[in-house]
């Protein structure tokens, strides 16, 4: 897989985290040039103990990842004279459909583990996974969020047959 990625000019990097008794691992696949990064695909493995409603867990995972992706890419609140400068989606952009990479959620069950929540454990890993992938692809460390503040042009691109669209973030 790694060789195949390299042959396609892609770079892969892992962000792994442990969250509130739930194990989450995310792998982000990006392609990059010196000044731009294309976030193509996110694969997330998630062990929540016993999986009661797998489809709902996958939905929560998709939403959690996109929420974290939005924060990582754009999320910035600034204060001026004691007031927040952002007031609406024109000054606080959020992820839209055009920004979505392909997302795959894999549920790993541990039925003997305690039942736990699925709504948030998958959110926190996407920023390190994406920034690690950026480092792997460009050699550049993103030390400060949001990522767009770094000056890198970030696009996202859905892999697959008729999914060859690229949108500027």
């Amino acid at each position, binding site marked *: 897989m790694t060789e195949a990625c390299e042959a396609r000019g892609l770079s892969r990097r892992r962000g792994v985290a442990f969250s509130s008794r739930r194990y989450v691992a995310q792998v982000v696949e990006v392609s990059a040039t010196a000044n731009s990064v294309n976030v193509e695909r996110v694969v997330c493995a998630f062990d929540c103990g016993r999986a009661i409603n797998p489809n709902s867990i996958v939905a929560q995972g*998709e939403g959690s*990842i996109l929420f974290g992706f939005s924060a990582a890419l754009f999320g910035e609140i600034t204060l001026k004279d004691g007031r927040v400068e952002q007031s609406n989606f024109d000054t606080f952009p959020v992820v*839209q*459909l055009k920004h979505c990479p392909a997302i795959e959620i894999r549920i790993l069950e541990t039925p003997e583990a305690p039942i736990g929540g699925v709504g948030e454990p998958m959110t926190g890993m996407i920023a390190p996974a994406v920034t690690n992938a950026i480092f792997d692809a460009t050699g550049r460390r993103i030390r400060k969020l949001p990522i767009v503040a770094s000056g890198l042009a970030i696009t996202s691109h859905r892999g697959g047959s008729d999914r060859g669209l690229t949108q500027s973030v």
Partner: protein
Amino acid sequence: MIFAIKVNGTSWTVEAHEDTPLLWVLREHCGLTGTKFGCGAGLCGACTVHVGGTAVRSCLMSISGVKGSDVTTIEGLVVGAEPLHPLQKAWIAEQVPQCGYCQSGMIMAAAALLRKKRQPTDADITQAITNICRCGTYPRVRRAIHRAAASND
């Protein structure tokens, strides 16, 4: 001022200031609360309805701007004997909504797209669906639109 508008096939006479957004006429005068207030600035699409068959952001359209065009809201999306629109069936099949707040607008935007293009490509969907969903249901929105389009065959 007095305005005569037709919403989901029903005629209404409403007394409102000419600058009143269509959104508030629908919600407050007509009691059609399926259409939601989101950002109030045409950015999020939660208030999307059809005016003359075209998707518009009803928070930005004044009642005086409707000018006799038929208005369709989520409550009037289904026409005829079918209980659900193909998009609504696809939405259920794909289990799209999470909190649900944006979904009326999302479905109305999708319905306008399918009216214009029966078999939209991913690129068509990306271009047409600019509604914001903070729950991140976008992957399922895309799948549901494709599913509804396939059911058109």
